[in-house]
């Protein structure tokens, strides 16, 4: 590193004496979060250039960075598990088995689906012991499908697996426990940045990816074959099949469908039995509620309000050394959160229940409910002349609030910054010099 001429060093030190009054805590915070007006920022910069104490304070106050996989847990110090309080139904704790696949399906595909009726019907209230929220799923699917701007696959992840070990043993592709969301929808599908475009492509008769359609057909068949019982997992199966419009790696899809019967039964049982309230090691993706908690299941949509409050407690996130996304409800026990197969995560950022996770190969996922459900996000920057898509490896994610955030990606030696001010709906892009 270069040397600073001594005279310059002296001068910088001497500037201390003229630094003027210190900015208040609000200004310093707003400075760190890039939310000052231009004039304010200039004045704060001026002060900071000359005031070591304020620089000190600023550096101390910055939250710990979310960065490379090698780093330890992201610990923004979340909520108190024990502070969780539920008004209504007083049931004992429930391990909720919420495993549903919902994918934004172009209308055309939906109607195609409708032809094959068995597969189509999402049972309205699937889980015996989990009232209400689960019923929200189809609604949620519809809502999700209506999301605009940017190609989105809405993925609902993670069946809690009573036996995490088994999950791990099962290995990558066929993990029976957490149902893994389809990671790489066909590129050409992605190319259509809006639903109508996709619909158009499909309607045009040639699927964006014929291979995907074949897979889809295969899934439909498989789905029929597995004849699921009316339990949430089974609904998951059905939804998974329905959902595969955007396709996924074949292995994933099959594994999702192929959840062994005994496992499903087990899950159903757990849901029904309401075991005691601890975060069990094996629980992945499910929400364990305290004793006073109502039996409200983890829905993905309409139950969201209560769920959201519940989730707004001690959820922590980290990325393992192998690039797996991990979550802990109690700060001690960590579980892999399966978002998509084959993704090597490198950055995660979480604010309350809003979670962003990204990794190699342009992988970027977002969850609004602390990891219960995930959306694949594909930032695009469209100008008259070109459309730029997020590519490369996501190495840093920073969100100051649910709406404003920046994603840093690297392609070779190029560093790019994608910024959103509306929670990921639209993005702007710039090269980082």
């Amino acid at each position, binding site marked *: 590193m270069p*040397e600073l*001429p001594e005279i310059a060093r002296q001068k910088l030190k001497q500037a201390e004496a003229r630094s003027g009054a210190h900015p208040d805590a609000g200004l310093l915070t707003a*400075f*760190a979060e890039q939310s000052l007006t231009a*004039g304010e920022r200039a004045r704060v910069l001026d002060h900071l250039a000359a005031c070591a104490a304020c620089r000190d304070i600023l550096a*101390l106050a910055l939250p710990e960075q979310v960065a490379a996989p090698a780093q330890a847990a992201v610990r923004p*110090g*979340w909520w108190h598990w024990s502070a969780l309080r539920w008004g209504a139904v007083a049931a004992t704790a429930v391990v909720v088995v919420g495993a549903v696949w919902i994918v934004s399906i172009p209308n055309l595909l939906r109607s195609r689906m409708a032809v094959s009726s068995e597969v189509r019907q999402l049972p309205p209230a699937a889980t015996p012991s989990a009232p209400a929220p689960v019923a929200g799923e189809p609604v949620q699917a519809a809502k999700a499908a209506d999301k605009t701007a940017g190609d989105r696959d809405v993925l609902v992840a993670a069946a809690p697996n009573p036996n995490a070990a088994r999950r791990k043993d099962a290995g990558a592709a066929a993990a029976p426990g957490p149902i893994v969301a389809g990671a790489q929808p066909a590129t050409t599908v992605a190319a259509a940045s809006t639903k109508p475009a996709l619909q158009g492509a499909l309607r045009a008769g040639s699927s964006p990816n014929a291979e995907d359609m074949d897979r889809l057909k295969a899934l439909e068949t498989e789905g029929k074959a597995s004849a699921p019982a009316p339990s949430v997992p089974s609904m998951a199966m059905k939804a998974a099949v329905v959902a595969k419009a955007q396709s996924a790696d074949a292995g994933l899809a099959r594994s999702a469908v192929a959840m062994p019967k005994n496992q499903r039964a087990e899950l159903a049982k757990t849901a029904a039995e309401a075991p005691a309230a601890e975060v069990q090691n094996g629980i992945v993706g499910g929400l364990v509620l305290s004793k006073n908690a109502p039996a409200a299941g983890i829905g993905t949509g309409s139950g969201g309000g209560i769920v959201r409050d519940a989730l707004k407690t001690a959820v922590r996130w980290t990325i393992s050394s192998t690039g797996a996304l991990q979550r802990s409800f109690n700060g001690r026990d960590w579980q892999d959160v399966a978002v998509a197969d084959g993704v090597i995560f490198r950055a995660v950022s979480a604010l309350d229940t809003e979670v962003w996770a990204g990794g190699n190969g342009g992988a970027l996922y977002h969850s609004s409910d602390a990891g219960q459900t995930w959306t694949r996000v594909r930032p695009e920057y469209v100008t008259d002349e070109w459309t730029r898509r997020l590519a490369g490896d996501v190495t840093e994610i920073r969100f100051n609030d649910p709406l404003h955030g920046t994603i840093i990606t690297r392609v070779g030696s190029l560093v790019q910054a994608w910024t959103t001010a509306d929670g990921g709906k639209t993005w702007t892009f710039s090269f980082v010099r």
Partner: protein
Amino acid sequence: MSSGSKPAPGVAGGNSGKQPGHLRPEVFARLEPLFAELFQRSGAARFGISAQDFSQILMEVAEKYLAATDKQDAARDLLSTVRVEELALARACAAGNEKAWEVFLTRYREKLYDAGCAIARNDSVGRELADSLYADLYGTGTREGARVSKLNSYMGRGSLEGWLRTVLAQTFVDRYRSQRRLVSLEEKDDEGVQFAAPVPEPSAEVDPRLDQAADAALGALSAEDRLVLAAYFLDGRTLAEIARVLGVHESTVSRRVEKITASLRKSIRDGLIRRGMSRRQAEEALAADVRDLRVNVRQRLAQETAGSSFSDKRAGAPASGEKP
């Protein structure tokens, strides 16, 4: 700057030198729809804050951060950046609203402790820090019927969580760093960049040409550049830390440091040459070791009061040149 030579109110820390209601009423005229929308967004109603109360709060924020000459646009811009939901929560807590406290605790209590420990790098100090802040936030009695709570000074600038961290950091620096500073005169301190009193040096002076050239070169740098230099060379911060402070990428900072130091060096050297030194003399002046760089203590004191960069120099000051 809109307010002429007066330092901007925001930067002036508290409400020093400002009367309440110093903004012209026209600034708030026709802002009602904005106030209404912000009130709506803030959810203040569920914590028992009325629309009127909230408008008062918003005006308080505007008063604090706008200059007397700012117009309605400035008010609008400012208020649009305010974190209204967090503001409502904070003020409701300050007023003692139970529901608000429930939310606050759920969201922030553990974060506060974690932040304290991260800042202090020490669990017991960190907990102490968090505890004392928590006490301040909760309120320490009443004054004229109103609860005295630190949360009343949260203005929605920056997230509430960030604000809490900043306040913790400020408390930490005030409480623990200043002690360290005093102590560090005695003991060896790696970080002791900010010695309160200058180490006594043999009284000497800097070649005025060097002095001027350096002033000119530094003056031409942007505040951000000077910040980068100070953070890197004076504070000893890593590139990553500086990058986080500025919200840029680490490689950006790295390149910036190299660029600035190179151009600074060149600019000072050129300035010296313009002022009559030979190239070799200039290079030597730049390379001068701190022991050779003799500083006039009296002069430095004069600088501190007058704020001028170059004051009295003895006539016939020895030219820099062949230094031993």
